[in-house]
């Protein structure tokens, strides 16, 4: 249904429930929906499962959500970074669950959820501990692992611009997980730096069509770098 333009980030995240699975865009800080996460912290939903590539950097964004104690479980490919101290402490204290998924499998499992694929066989992870307990099948002489979709109740993403119909474009490598997460959640919320009238985005260059986007909210552009992260 039609995309709505929210007046505030708080309105944009309204209705997220305790126990929800929340897909959070970004790769490190690039594409991280800082303002939506801050609003989610104010909104108060807890016991969340967060699906994101990393488990937070520094004290902002996802790290702040973790520190606020709202997250029961993180599904990600790469929690450990030079500035992932918030997650590290929670994990070592046994206060947060972790499911590590290879980065491409994480993306593809969300794509499957958005694309109506029931399950798929991937060669990634075969013969490694990350395939333990998973069904496997040999296809063309190569062992494949059966992988299942990851569907979100909500996706929070950050993008460059949107139009009033919810069409979205991204900027450089801040695109990363945004487009695939936008397909994979029941409710998709995008914070963008600018909202333009329908017809102002080049239809050839729209990356996420409005059909995938439920709510758009304009926020000030905050571009943060990871200090010394590798």
């Amino acid at each position, binding site marked *: 249904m039609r995309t709505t333009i929210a007046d505030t980030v708080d309105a944009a995240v309204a209705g997220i429930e305790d126990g929800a699975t929340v897909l959070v865009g970004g*790769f490190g*800080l690039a594409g991280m929906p800082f303002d939506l996460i801050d609003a989610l912290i104010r909104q108060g939903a807890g016991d969340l499962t967060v699906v994101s590539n990393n488990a937070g950097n520094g004290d902002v964004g996802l790290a702040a959500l973790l520190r606020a104690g709202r997250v029961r479980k993180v599904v990600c490919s*790469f929690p450990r970074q030079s500035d992932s101290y918030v997650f590290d402490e929670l994990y070592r204290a046994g206060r947060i669950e972790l499911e590590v998924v290879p*980065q*491409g499998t994480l993306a593809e499992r969300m794509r499957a959820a958005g694309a109506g694929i029931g399950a798929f066989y*991937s060669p990634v992870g075969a013969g*490694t*501990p990350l395939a333990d307990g998973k069904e496997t099948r040999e296809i063309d002489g190569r062992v494949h692992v059966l992988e299942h979709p990851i569907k979100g109740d909500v996706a929070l993403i950050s993008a460059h611009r949107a139009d009033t119909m919810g069409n979205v474009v991204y900027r450089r490598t801040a*695109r990363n997980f945004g487009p695939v997460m936008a397909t994979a959640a029941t409710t998709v919320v995008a914070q963008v730096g600018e909202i333009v009238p329908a017809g102002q985005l080049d239809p050839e260059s729209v990356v996420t069509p409005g059909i995938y986007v439920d709510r758009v909210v304009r926020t000030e552009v905050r571009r943060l770098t*990871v200090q010394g992260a590798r």
Partner: protein
Amino acid sequence: MTTAAGCREHPDLAPLTTEELAARIARDIPPGSYVNLGIGQPTRIAEHLAPDAGIVLHTENGMLGMGPAATGDAIDPDLTNAGKVPVTELPGAAYFHHADSFAMMRGGHLDVCVLGAFQVSHHGDLANWHTGDPDAIPAVGGAMDLAVGAREVLVMMKLFTRDGAAKLVPACTYPLTGAGCVSRVYTDHGVFEPGPDGVRVLETYGTTADTLGERLGVGLIR
């Protein structure tokens, strides 16, 4: 990668420095290749690629045509490499999302990737994501996708740990990243090709193949 006939031994040279090793690997990457350089030491290889070789760098967070690290005003937080370091864009670059980026990797479209490693087995198994230490926080990133997907998986590593233990081992004791996926292993002491029949040695630096074989405890194929 073409396999050189026999082994070129350089007992007179010192073991290669990291920079020399990066340059050595750069020389083996064919012109026109699409290449992913893993986080850490392999990123150094970029500085040794011939500018006119037309080699295009891929970064798994959604870009082909990645340029050198950004400095000063060129730093754009929306443009980083897989290690989250700000980088630059070269003419002819293209951006894409994560599912497309990893489809590209898993689908076998990258000619070469170069990864660091904790261990490589004589049969080409790779362990580079987890030491198995129960205290360590596991983090795999895109390593498994690269190990399975690139046409040639090259490893860049020191041959021995600080304690002198070989990292080219009969079987990995650390958790695997990928099974039988490594084409070639470039180390400070020599270049090796693991495989189903064992380890071939292609070059040595600061030692001989015989000495290396003894230190590694394996009969190296010439």
